[in-house]
C-alpha cells in the first residue's frame, strides 16, 4: 500500500528522521511507537504529504509521491489524518465534518448524507448543530475522526489521538478505530507513545527511536524479542543483563554473569556473549523459609529487596541477586508476603521466559 525507502528529513543540521524503510500493508493497523520527540509525527506528516522529505521516497499504491503539488493533492485526498490536537474549526459539528467533501466539490445533498453517516460512525448523531469548540476533548477528537473518515479514505493516519484524553474517552476512540479497520477495511497508521494502546490496536508495530526505525514486527516479536537494549527498555523490559554462555545441553544453556548465573533456552554455543531480557511480570517473588515448595522455574536467585515502587494495583520490586532483577507483582501479594526494603527473598524466573539476544551491543 505504502512503501517507504531511505526516507530522511533534516531541519537545519538536525536529522529528525534518518533512513526509514517501511512497508504498510493494505487493511492493517500499523502502530508506530516510540518516545516523545523520536520522529513519529514527522514520519506521519511525510506520509500524509504535508512536508517533503530531505531524501528518500514514499510510494502510495505503487505511485511515486514526489510529483507536483497537484499530484500530491490528488494522493493526499485518498488519505485522512487526525492530529494530536483535534483542530476543530469554530463552526458547527456538521460543518466541521463536511470540510473534506466541500473541498472536493461534492454536492450538498450528498454532503448531508455522508456527514450523517460519518457522525453515526463515531457516535455523535444529534450533535450536528452544536458548535464544535464547545464539545469535550474526547468528542472533539471523534469529530476529527468523522471529518477524516467522511471522504472514505483508503488510509487513516492518527498522531497520538488520545494523548490528551482521559482513559474512558481513549477507550471509546480505540474501539472506534478497531471498528473502522474491521468494517470499512481502512488501513490505519497510528503513532503513539502509549505501549498499551499500541499493543491493543496493532497488527504490526514499528518502534522508532531517535529518528530511526529500530524494529518492525508483530506484537510478539517486539514485546518478547526486542532488538537491542533501547527497544527492550521502551517496551517495558526492566531487566537487561549481559553474560557469557558457559554450557549448552540441547538448547538449555547456562549463562554466567559477573555475580550470578542463569539457565536459559537458546541455541547459542558456549563462549558466546549474550544479552538477557527479562520482563518484570515473568519474575516471581517468594520468601526463602517457605522454600521447601517445588517449582518448575529453573532460576531461583536469592537476594535482598533494594527498591519498591508502587504503581497503584501493582508494585515494582527490585531485588539485588548479585545483579538487579525487577519483578512486577500485585500490591495484594506484596502485602501478604510483607515485603519491605532489605528483606531477603527469592526471585524466580522460568528459563523459557528469558529472552536471549545474541551479540549484545
Amino acid at each position: 500500500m505504502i512503501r517507504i525507502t531511505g526516507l530522511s528529513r533534516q531541519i537545519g543540521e538536525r536529522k529528525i528522521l534518518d533512513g526509514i524503510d517501511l512497508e504498510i500493508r493494505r487493511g492493517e493497523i500499523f502502530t508506530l511507537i516510540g518516545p516523545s520527540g523520536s520522529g513519529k509525527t514527522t514520519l506521519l506528516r511525510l506520509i500524509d504529504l504535508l512536508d517533503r522529505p530531505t531524501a528518500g521516497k514514499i510510494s502510495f499504491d505503487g505511485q511515486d509521491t514526489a510529483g507536483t503539488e497537484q499530484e500530491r493533492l490528488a494522493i493526499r485526498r485518498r488519505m485522512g489524518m487526525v492530529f494530536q490536537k483535534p483542530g476543530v474549526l469554530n463552526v458547527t459539528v456538521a460543518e466541521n465534518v463536511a470540510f473534506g467533501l466541500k473541498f472536493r466539490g461534492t454536492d450538498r445533498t450528498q454532503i448531508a448524507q455522508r456527514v450523517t453517516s460519518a457522525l453515526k460512525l463515531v457516535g455523535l448523531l444529534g450533535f450536528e448543530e452544536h458548535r464544535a469548540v464547545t464539545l469535550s476533548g474526547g468528542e472533539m477528537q471523534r469529530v476529527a475522526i468523522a471529518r477524516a473518515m467522511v471522504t472514505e479514505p483508503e488510509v487513516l493516519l492518527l498522531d497520538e489521538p488520545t494523548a490528551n484524553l482521559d482513559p474512558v474517552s481513549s477507550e471509546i476512540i480505540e474501539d472506534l478505530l478497531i471498528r473502522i479497520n474491521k468494517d470499512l477495511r481502512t488501513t490505519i497508521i497510528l503513532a503513539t507513545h502509549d505501549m498499551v494502546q499500541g499493543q491493543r490496536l496493532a497488527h504490526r508495530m514499528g518502534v522508532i527511536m531517535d529518528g530511526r526505525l529500530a524494529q518492525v514486527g508483530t506484537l510478539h516479536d517486539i514485546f518478547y524479542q526486542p532488538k537491542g537494549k533501547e527497544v527492550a527498555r521502551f517496551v517495558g523490559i526492566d531487566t537487561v543483563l549481559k553474560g557469557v554462555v558457559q554450557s549448552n545441553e540441547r538448547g538449555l544453556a547456562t549463562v554466567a554473569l559477573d555475580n550470578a548465573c542463569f539457565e536459559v533456552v537458546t541455541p547459542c554455543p558456549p563462549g558466546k556473549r549474550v544479552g538477557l531480557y527479562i520482563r518484570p511480570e515473568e519474575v516471581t517473588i517468594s520468601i526463602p523459609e517457605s522454600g521447601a515448595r517445588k517449582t518448575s522455574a529453573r532460576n531461583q536467585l536469592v537476594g535482598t529487596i533494594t527498591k519498591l515502587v508502587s504503581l497503584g494495583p501493582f508494585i515494582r520490586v527490585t531485588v539485588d541477586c548479585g545483579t538487579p532483577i525487577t519483578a512486577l507483582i500485585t500490591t495484594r501479594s506484596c502485602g501478604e508476603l510483607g515485603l519491605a526494603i532489605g528483606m531477603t527473598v527469592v526471585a524466580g524466573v522460568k528459563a523459557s521466559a528469558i529472552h536471549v539476544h545474541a551479540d549484545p551491543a
Partner: protein
Amino acid sequence: MDEIITGITQAFNLILTLNPEVLHIAALSVYISLAATLLAACISIPLGGLIHFREFRGKRALKVIIQTLYSVPTVVVGLLVYLLLSRSGPFGFFGLLFTPEGMILGQMVLIIPITTGLVISALSGVDQNISDTLISLGATEFQSIVQIVKEARLAILSAVILAFGRAISEVGVAMMIGGNISGQTRVLTTAIALQTGMGDFGFSIALGIILLAIALVIVVAMNLITSGLSAEHQQVMGGPRS
C-alpha cells in the same frame, strides 16, 4: 461653572429637539468614517492575508513598519495627503481637496496600517494545527486560506471596528483635508474644535456627547463580538451542549 451647566442644558436641548445642523454633522461624520473603514478593510484583509501567507525577505521588518504606523500622528497623515491632493500635487487634478471623498481617502491612509496589522495578528492567532488540518483534508492552498480567514473572522471584525473608532475620533485629517466647511465637510471633531474656539460650548458639548455615544456603541459591539456574540450564536445554532 455657570458656563458648563448652561452648556450641558443647551446640549441636551440640541440633541432632544433633533437640531438639523447637529444631525447633519453627526451623519456626515459617520458616513465618512464608515466609508473609509469599509474601503480600508477591503484593502487590508487581502493585503494582510498576502503578508501572512507568503514568505518573503523583509517580512518581519514590514510588520514592524506597519505597527509603527499605528501611532502615526493624524496631522502627519493630513499633511501627506494634503500635499498629494492639493492643486499642484500629483493627484490635484481629481479635485478631492476639501471634499468628503478626500477626507475618506485621508482617513483610509490613516487606518490601513491598523487594519492590516491587526488582520495579520488575527490570522497568526489561528492555530497552525488548523491550517495543517485543512491541508490534510484535501484543501487546495486557496481553499485553506479562505477557511483560515473565516476562522479569524471575529478578530478581523474587531480590528475593523477599532479602526472605525480611530477614524471617527481623529481631527487632523478631517481639518486639513476637509477644511471644516459648514454643511459640506464639517464633522463632529472639527466642529467641536471650531465651536469651542468661538465660545459656543453648548454646541460643542452636544457634539461631544454624540461622539461619546458612538464610542459607546463601538465598545458594546466589540464586546458582543469577542464574547457575547459567540454565546448568542450558539443559542441560534442549537443551544449549548447539555
